[in-house]
């Protein structure tokens, strides 16, 4: 410390810096729920045991596609210990996560659409009894023709899996044109056309879904469930049970992982709610791993065709992307997923003209939907591999190519996405440096290689799932006389650390520690709505709401303390559990005293905060998917070894840089990046949601190949390579303390980087995931035979595309609307919302 008598001026400056220093934000901390988790005290849904609790099991369809002709549950009902058998007749109202896809029934009434579709529910005293009784329910089916993939769906319009959608078994078609790509191709020096296939895969959270429902003492419904979206479950329950939402309480228990797999309202949740109300007893269901595979709504299998024109220097002149999407048996988030397969292609590199066509088909398999990176993972895989091919042809280093074409900060893209800060270049530079890319790329011995890829991702979807004008996130704050602070928020802790983020933000603003804060989240009775833990939205949206509530509380305390201490408000600081004069830090009160002063002055101290994302300039139909307050960026380098005889692949090391804006808790942020790398590696190398047909003359079966956590291959912690994580922090004005997302983005570059590394190692392209040794061996054989050294799809089937919506990009004078769109009036739109 400098001597105050000698240099007073210096001391004031230093003191100010000291009092303004962030004490919680940016400091690596143990997360607020860590103790409960590591000591086994976290109560997951399946840990709930209540007196008189009954157990529920679902009878699921053994047929991939059939009409239910008759259900006779009398034998099951007569089984000792059985309390109740429910069938489709008891819950006929259709629901679904998206207003335009209300196509699910909690128990299928007359039509089953995949093996595993629930047909009846048994509630019994013991789980084993319920299980035994399932075999006593007699169901007669009429078998229907099955559709196993989108190409079959295109060729098989009848029988229809659903009686809505575009036509036949096509659920959704999209055709959007942002500028004339043919002009773009005419300007190009080189045109690249490539086909890619991204196999479907599943979330695989360690916690299997579970729910417990009760008729509470007052006669209302309460349900505890492992859901990422309590608000949407709340709405679905109200709809199907025909109850006022005011009489339903949804409590999202901490999720043992979600990754998007717990973001739909699920049939089992509705069934136990109904059963609890009917029996006036707690009813529990815990799904088996196999049943989780049937819930699925994971990564869509997507076939892609990328046509891209470039100038010699790498500048992209136009891009045409087509995607064919295997939706599975229900809509789920599928309409959004369909748009997402083309929404973010423009966010990382400048694409002046862009044509996007997508088609999602229904098939007789468990429905697909959002999994970490929702819909953007598949086209990112294609785009980043194609860039690698482009770089090679143009004789450019892949990192250099990307640095040249990276999109500028605050740009508005061809499809009217407004970007915020763009740390892409910095990510590339950092990852190139820490991986010693320049010493490795195309320089390693045969059988060893490195690959690079980048990505961008949303920080929260700009629009809610159902049309409404209310905030996306709300927070209530209660400050009590004991100096305690309680946060109430609908946000759901799914392991990603959202509770910690809320606590950190409030603690920082009010100058306390996260230990001084209590958090009640994911409970529709206790906290204001937060739309849910999906689309990487919680840190930014609930975080901003928390920040606003905390700032409002701070203003009240400031006023009360300022009056008491007679210090101008601007001079007051909140830090170290005190409120004090920054000019004379010893002059102050404890935080506890500050709350008492505020309560004495204003009455009970409570504040609220909320957040609504900015309005997007993308006003064309379909423009609701893609906008976000800001986007995160990542760049990764993967090193592989490939055995040239067996094709065996090994990944010794991965380097990744992620542009997070600001890491609120760097320990957690790194965990998210590592978790993404882990998941990405699984998708790259082994994960497959694969189905098999039996010989058609003998069987109509269409079953999941291996719905078990042993045979559905996913890497374990021991299989992980060394990972080096760099966080690029360039605060974004949209995020709380400048924070952007980190939960999903870092997954995206991993798969294409692995593919590019395999090419660097042995000179063959595997243009699909998973990249397995068998495929590498096949590609090596092609290479040896003098054919194209690759493994992957070779064509894109004909799709009857609708007329494109023409949206001129900003630089062609576009205003974000389609020039050929017939617009519905807003009253029509409202009517539609009410109907759904």
């Amino acid at each position, binding site marked *: 410390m400098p001597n105050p008598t000698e240099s007073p001026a210096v001391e004031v400056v230093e003191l100010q810096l000291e009092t303004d220093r962030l004490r919680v934000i940016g400091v690596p901390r143990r997360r607020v729920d860590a103790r409960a988790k590591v000591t086994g005290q976290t109560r997951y849904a399946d840990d709930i045991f209540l007196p008189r609790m009954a157990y529920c099991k679902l009878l699921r369809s053994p047929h991939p596609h059939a009409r239910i002709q008759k259900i006779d549950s009398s034998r099951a009902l007569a089984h000792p210990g059985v309390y109740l058998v429910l069938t489709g007749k008891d819950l006929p109202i259709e629901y679904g996560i998206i207003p335009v896809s209300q196509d699910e029934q909690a128990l299928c009434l007359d039509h089953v659409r995949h093996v595993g579709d629930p047909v009846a529910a048994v509630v019994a005293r013991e789980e084993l009894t319920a299980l035994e009784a399932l075999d006593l329910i007699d169901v007669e089916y009429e078998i229907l023709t099955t559709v196993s993939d989108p190409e079959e769906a295109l060729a098989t319009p009848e029988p229809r899996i659903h009686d809505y959608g575009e036509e036949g078994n096509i659920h959704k078609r999209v055709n959007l044109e942002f500028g004339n790509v043919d002009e773009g191709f005419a300007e190009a020096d080189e045109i690249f056309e490539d086909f890619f296939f991204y196999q479907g895969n599943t979330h695989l959270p360690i916690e299997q879904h579970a729910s417990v429902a009760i008729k509470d003492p007052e006669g209302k419904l309460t349900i505890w469930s492992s859901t990422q979206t309590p608000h949407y479950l709340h709405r679905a329950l109200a709809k199907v049970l025909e109850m006022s939402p005011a009489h339903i309480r949804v409590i999202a228990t901490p999720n043992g992982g979600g990754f998007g797999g717990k973001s739909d309202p699920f049939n089992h949740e509705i069934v136990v709610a109904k059963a609890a109300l009917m029996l006036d007893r707690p009813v529990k269901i815990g799904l088996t791993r196999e049943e989780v595979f049937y819930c699925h709504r994971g990564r869509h299998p997507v076939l892609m065709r990328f046509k891209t024109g470039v100038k010699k220097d790498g500048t992209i002149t136009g891009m045409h992307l087509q995607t064919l999407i295997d939706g599975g048996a229900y809509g789920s988030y599928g309409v959004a997923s369909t748009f997402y397969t083309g929404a973010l292609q423009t966010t990382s590199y400048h694409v002046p003209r862009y044509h996007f066509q997508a088609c999602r088909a229904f098939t007789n398999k468990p429905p697909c939907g959002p999994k970490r990176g929702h819909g953007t993972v598949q086209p990112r895989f294609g785009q980043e591999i194609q860039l690698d091919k482009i770089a090679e042809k143009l004789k450019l280093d892949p990192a250099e190519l990307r640095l040249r074409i990276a999109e500028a900060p605050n740009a508005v893209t061809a499809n009217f996405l407004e970007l915020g800060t763009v740390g892409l270049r910095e990510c590339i530079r950092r990852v190139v440096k820490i991986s010693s890319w320049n010493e490795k790329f195309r320089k390693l011995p045969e059988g060893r290689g490195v690959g690079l890829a980048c990505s961008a991702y949303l920080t929260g979807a700009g629009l809610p799932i159902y049309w409404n004008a209310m905030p996306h996130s709300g927070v209530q704050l209660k400050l009590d006389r004991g100096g305690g602070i309680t946060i109430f928020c609908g946000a759901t802790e799914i392991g990603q650390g959202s509770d910690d983020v809320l606590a950190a933000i409030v603690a920082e603003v009010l100058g306390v520690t996260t230990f001084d804060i209590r958090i009640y989240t994911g409970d529709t009775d206790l906290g204001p709505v937060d739309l849910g833990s999906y689309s990487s939205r919680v840190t930014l949206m609930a975080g901003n709401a928390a920040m606003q509530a905390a700032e409002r509380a701070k203003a009240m305390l400031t006023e009360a303390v300022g009056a008491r201490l007679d210090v101008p408000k601007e001079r007051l600081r909140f830090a170290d559990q005190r409120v004090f004069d920054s000019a004379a830090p010893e002059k102050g009160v404890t935080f506890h005293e500050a709350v008492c002063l505020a309560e004495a002055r204003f009455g009970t101290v409570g504040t609220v905060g909320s957040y609504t994302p900015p309005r997007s300039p993308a006003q064309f139909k379909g423009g609701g998917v893609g906008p976000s307050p800001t986007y995160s960026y990542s760049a990764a380098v993967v090193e592989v070894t490939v055995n040239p005889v067996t094709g065996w692949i090994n990944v010794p090391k991965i380097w990744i840089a992620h542009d997070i804006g600001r890491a609120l808790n760097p320990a957690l942020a790194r965990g998210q990046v590592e978790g993404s790398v882990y998941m990405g590696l699984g998708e790259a190398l082994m994960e497959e949601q694969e189905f098999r047909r039996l010989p058609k003359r003998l*069987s109509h079966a269409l079953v999941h190949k291996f719905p078990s956590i042993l045979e559905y*291959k996913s890497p374990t912690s021991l299989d992980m390579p060394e990972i080096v994580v760099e966080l690029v922090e360039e605060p974004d004005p949209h995020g709380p303390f400048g924070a952007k997302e980190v939960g999903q983005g870092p997954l995206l570059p991993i798969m294409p980087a692995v593919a590019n590394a395999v090419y660097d190692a042995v000179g063959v392209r595997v243009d699909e995931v998973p990249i397995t040794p068998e495929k590498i061996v096949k590609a090596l054989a092609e290479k040896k035979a003098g054919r194209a050294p690759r493994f992957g799809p070779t064509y894109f089937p004909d799709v009857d595309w609708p007329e494109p919506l023409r949206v001129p990009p900003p630089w062609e004078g576009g205003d974000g609307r389609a020039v050929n769109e017939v617009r519905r009036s807003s009253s029509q739109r409202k009517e539609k919302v009410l109907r759904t």
Partner: protein
Amino acid sequence: MMRLPLFEFRAPRTLEEAARILDGEGTSAMLLAGGTDLLPNMKRRQQVPRTLVSLRHVGGLKEAQLTPSGLRLGACLTLADIARDPRFRNGASALWQAASQVATPHIRTMATLGGNICLDTRCNYYDQSYEWRKAINFCLKKDGITCWVAPASSKCMAVSSTDTAPALIALGARVLLVSRAEEREVPLCDLYNSDGSDYIRRRPNEILTEVLLDSLRGWKSTYWKLRRRGSFDFPVLSVAAAVQLGNGGIAQDARIVVGSVASRPLVATEAAKSLVGRPLDEEAIREAAALAGRIAKPLDNTDFDMSWRKKVATEFVTYALRELRGEDVRTERQRLTRYPFV
């Protein structure tokens, strides 16, 4: 959660008592050792014994004795016991490597050697829940009439998936089978049938009590396992090899066993014979690898593509023999397995 069916549980304290119960119950009883195979199978209703006879409290089955003539291993030694025991790191290292690569650390502390030898055969159409199997109308091995792997076949082709059996066969192991009335010693390679349903020649009333190994002086052995993940997974191909090297590195005797490509471990007699009397040079290795690879006829009922598995069989024999002649193959091994035992 998946639930066990109801069963009667018996916990005998002596071998005689266990043998007596088994004799009385007939085929409706099954022995329970670590339960890491049997209990999951019961949850999936692949096996639904009315009575479980636990071996946990039966004395004398957990010893590993080094005798002048060789080794006697109690059937209830756990795989973790074997993986830990330095006595297995020389001649018997194939056994040690095989045991160390079974499943996960948690499972190895439960899993026994006897259970591993008697492990049920595996198949993608069979190792599924009751509900899943119902959706394919079951299969020949259990409750059904068709083999979905080979619909024309009247025999089940489920795969022998034990890691220790190929290793033990390569080491020339015998097993002791004890029933109420008799006791018999059987060479391990004769314990198995080429039939995925009726895969083991152990009679229902017999208890496997011991594994017997002759002295392995002068022998070197190794075990190579193929699986998707280096951390854990059942083998989908394995190669156990043992050679007795004499002066000048000339092979005096050799055994090669290919596992997990048929309903029983396959003894590659021709391949082993081709090595005898020669040094393990490139040509000898190439020849033996080709001969051993020829007998591997994997089917499409495990993880990975079957033709690729066959290709790897040849490679693995090569790795094994190169390792046995003293080459450093640690890099190959490290890329296949995540255990630090190499």
